[in-house]
């Protein structure tokens, strides 16, 4: 099978998985490119960032139109993530690959643990009446009140930094931040994070694009696969139970985390 088809198939898998589990897909794209295709880590991170924009913007269009994403909150927090992503993108040019691999392994472990905890939490404490950001008391204001904005903006900087440095959307940081720290309903947090990922990833991707760290011929099939996979995942998401998927995801993430840790230790 030609390399382009394999790359597109990998992107499809990452995009579909990402859409089904509420992730950008970058958490899978970087390891697939690095461990599966032998792509250097900076190029894998840059390719992942630009691919993540496609998943985010495609899904965000639906979430914004449906009123699920809180655009005001997303843009406010984007002030932190954009600065963080730019800083991360610049830092990536100086940080040794092995350290980036080690940080990615830690991110994978954190993501896996978060997903498992989410399974057992099962939407506990959710107020159904509050899960509707499209109830404006002004032209676009949500019905609920968020809190701890300065803390959240500082946390957003960290989320953006993780995104720019490791090539992920930053949703693994932003969703818990909006839900647990700011008190936004979980569905709103997920949809808003999805909207923000495009802005964050674009800010980080500029540095990679203009530095020559994104191989166009590598990125093109991945982006096409990811875009198709995200659309497929969004289409079937209502018909597939997420529990078995999360279980599979955690197994994959554990395996990839070990491989990335070995890469960090110079043993891979």
């Amino acid at each position, binding site marked *: 099978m030609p390399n382009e088809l394999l790359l597109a198939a990998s992107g499809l898998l990452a995009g579909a998985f990402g859409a089904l589990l509420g992730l950008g897909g970058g958490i899978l794209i970087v390891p697939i490119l690095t461990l599966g295709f032998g792509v250097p880590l900076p190029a894998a991170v840059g390719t992942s960032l630009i691919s993540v924009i496609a998943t985010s913007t495609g899904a965000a269009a639906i979430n914004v139109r449906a009123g699920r994403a809180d655009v005001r909150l997303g843009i406010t927090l984007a002030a932190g993530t954009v600065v963080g992503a730019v800083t991360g993108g610049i830092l990536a040019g100086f940080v040794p690959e092995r350290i980036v691999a080690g940080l990615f392994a830690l991110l994978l472990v954190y993501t896996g643990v978060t997903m498992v905890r989410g399974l057992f939490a099962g939407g506990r404490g959710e107020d159904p009446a509050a899960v509707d950001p499209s109830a404006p008391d002004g032209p676009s204001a949500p019905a609920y009140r968020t809190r701890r904005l300065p803390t959240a903006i500082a946390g957003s900087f960290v989320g953006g930094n993780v995104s720019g440095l490791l090539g992920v959307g930053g949703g693994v940081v932003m969703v818990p931040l909006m839900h647990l720290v700011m008190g936004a309903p979980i569905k709103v947090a997920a949809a808003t994070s999805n909207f923000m990922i495009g802005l964050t990833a674009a800010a980080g991707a500029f540095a990679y694009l*203009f530095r*020559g760290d994104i191989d166009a011929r590598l990125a093109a099939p991945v982006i096409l696969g990811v875009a198709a996979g995200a659309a497929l995942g969004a289409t079937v998401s209502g018909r597939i139970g997420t529990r078995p998927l999360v279980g599979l995801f955690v197994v994959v993430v554990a395996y990839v985390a070990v491989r990335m840790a070995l890469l960090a230790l110079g043993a891979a």
Partner: protein
Amino acid sequence: MSASSRRAGARSFEAVATILRLGTLLAVVVIATGLAWALATDAPARTDETVLELVGDGGPDAVIGIGLIGLALVPIGALAAAVVTFARAGERRPLAVAASVLVLMLATLVAAFGIGAPGA
């Protein structure tokens, strides 16, 4: 909360959603066209070049490069649409925040462009 207010809330960001949807679609089509051209002509891949060098050199990789830049610009377009939406609604605080983030994004773009420009 009435049904009409819900519809109004979603409708207020209609332009943002439209730019996100159409921009993504357009960028993906351009990237697909460039890749199809490259595969059809068996054109050798040009690696280790910045996106601006790719675009300047022409050929299928230039088309892919234009698609990549276009894709990265989609969120900025959506942000600009949000700025217009807040301005029309007279919402000063979100307008100031959105405009600041837009300026930040544009500054990032210009800075990155400066770093990657041929001869820089």
